[in-house]
């Protein structure tokens, strides 16, 4: 009996809020609830589909996720390769733990003051006579290419992947596999291409998906380092829901539904049954 009660509480805690929130957003998006509701309507969904901003924000989130992930994976694979083959380098290895102490907001703040035209790198450039005025420095924050956002994302997650890849490579006994491959006639580059990279990416695939989902939901970093347009899906939603224009709220809720279903599908397809990831 006690056991069933605990399981029931667990199901309520995990599914309850989500079911409650999602059903509210669905009802709101179809005009069934909310301050201005006039009964069932598809208007808000049609508006969402027509609003280029909405599609754009989804695409922008996906783009940020993909580019941040690609850079992170590249850097982490390279570093792990180095750590696996040459023991030592302890100082660098330990320094990787530092970014893990950074709340995303603080990381964004720090990178803002490093990268912005009034920031530290710009000042160094000025003192080194690379630039002559504050305006000479390129825009790396709140910029068109989201450079600051991507750098901060990589800063926040590359240590995790480097540690993960290094541990996984040691578990798979990569040094010995490399010896086997070398004596079979493989060069180091061929080993990297055919064994090391595919092996590690395959073994850590669920974790890559997991962090992909985290990146899709990034909020604080683009809040500080992004532009008002394009903005990622999280900012699109919070903007719509907290704005004074009441007509915007149902569209925001429609986007909540889209985002939530997207994440649920990704979890169901790629992350399920992997509780050891956590």
């Amino acid at each position, binding site marked *: 009996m006690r056991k069933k009660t605990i399981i029931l509480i667990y199901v309520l805690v995990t599914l309850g809020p989500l079911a409650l929130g999602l059903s509210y957003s669905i009802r709101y998006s179809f005009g069934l609830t909310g301050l201005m509701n006039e009964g069932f309507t598809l208007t808000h969904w049609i508006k969402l589909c027509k609003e280029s901003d909405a599609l754009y924000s989804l695409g922008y989130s996906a783009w940020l996720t993909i580019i941040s992930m690609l850079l992170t994976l590249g850097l982490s694979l390279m570093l792990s390769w180095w750590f696996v083959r040459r023991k030592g380098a302890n100082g660098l290895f330990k320094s990787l733990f530092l970014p893990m102490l950074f709340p995303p907001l603080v990381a964004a703040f720090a990178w803002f003051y490093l990268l912005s035209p009034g920031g530290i790198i710009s000042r160094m450039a000025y003192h080194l006579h690379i630039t002559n005025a504050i305006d000479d420095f390129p825009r790396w924050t709140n910029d068109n290419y989201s450079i600051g956002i991507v750098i901060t994302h990589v800063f926040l997650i590359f240590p995790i992947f480097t540690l993960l890849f290094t541990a996984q490579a040691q578990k798979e006994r990569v040094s010995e596999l490399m*010896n086997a491959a070398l*004596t079979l006639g493989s060069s180091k580059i061929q080993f990297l291409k055919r064994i090391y990279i595919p092996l590690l990416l395959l073994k850590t695939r669920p974790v890559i998906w997991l962090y992909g989902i985290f990146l899709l939901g990034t909020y604080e970093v683009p809040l500080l380092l992004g532009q008002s347009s394009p903005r990622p899906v999280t900012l699109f939603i919070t903007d719509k829901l907290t704005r004074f224009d009441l007509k915007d709220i149902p569209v925001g809720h429609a986007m909540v539904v889209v985002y939530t279903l997207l994440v649920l599908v990704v979890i169901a397809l790629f992350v399920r049954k992997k509780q050891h990831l956590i």
Partner: protein
Amino acid sequence: MIVLDNLHKVYDGETVLNGLSLEVPEQLTLSILGKSGSGKSTLLKIMAGLESADSGSFSVHGEDMLSLVPQKRGVVYLSQEPLLFPHLSVFENLAYGLKIRKQDKAAIQKDVEVMADKLGLSEHLMKGPHQLSGGQKQRVSFGRALIINPNILLLDEPFGSLDTQTRAEMQSLFNSIRKEFSITALFVTHDLKEALLMGDRVAMMQDGNLQVFSSVEAFINDPGSGAADEIKFWKQFNL
């Protein structure tokens, strides 16, 4: 002819190879016996290019090997662990060396199928390494090495982790295959019986040096080999 001449190797002040010299005619298998830590593995790793010698030379058909990177030597090192590539199927593992050499697809397909057939792996080609038994994994590891037709096969206690029955099966499989493929091999073991079974000749590793016996009989008759004692032990049961 494989020629090793005056190889030296010192590890942390300890001499592992002390002027080791050796000649192995082609298509023969030399069994190397020795206690653990006697430097057997080091010798094989130096030959494979996975470690370097402090001094000395190693040549195959007169060509200096020590100056070559491992992948150019045609010397394959097989350890007790089969070390299959975990993310590749049995087929892909067998084909690895051929793909590296950019052979065409049809040839690879054919070679792998032939090799799999010889090793009794035909039914397992699409399986992953984790679905294989210990003996099967070791066979894939063999096949992966044999398929590229290496100059020398170096076997470092390859059957050490197998159970007795599988071990016996693998020993006879290896014996038939090495004849078929005319392989030149060094077979390291600490098991006296295995050394006699697998080698055309037997050598003993001691104090960083190798004593090669001219024939199996010479080995048995040598008081230092321990073979005579072993035979005496079994004889007392009149088996």
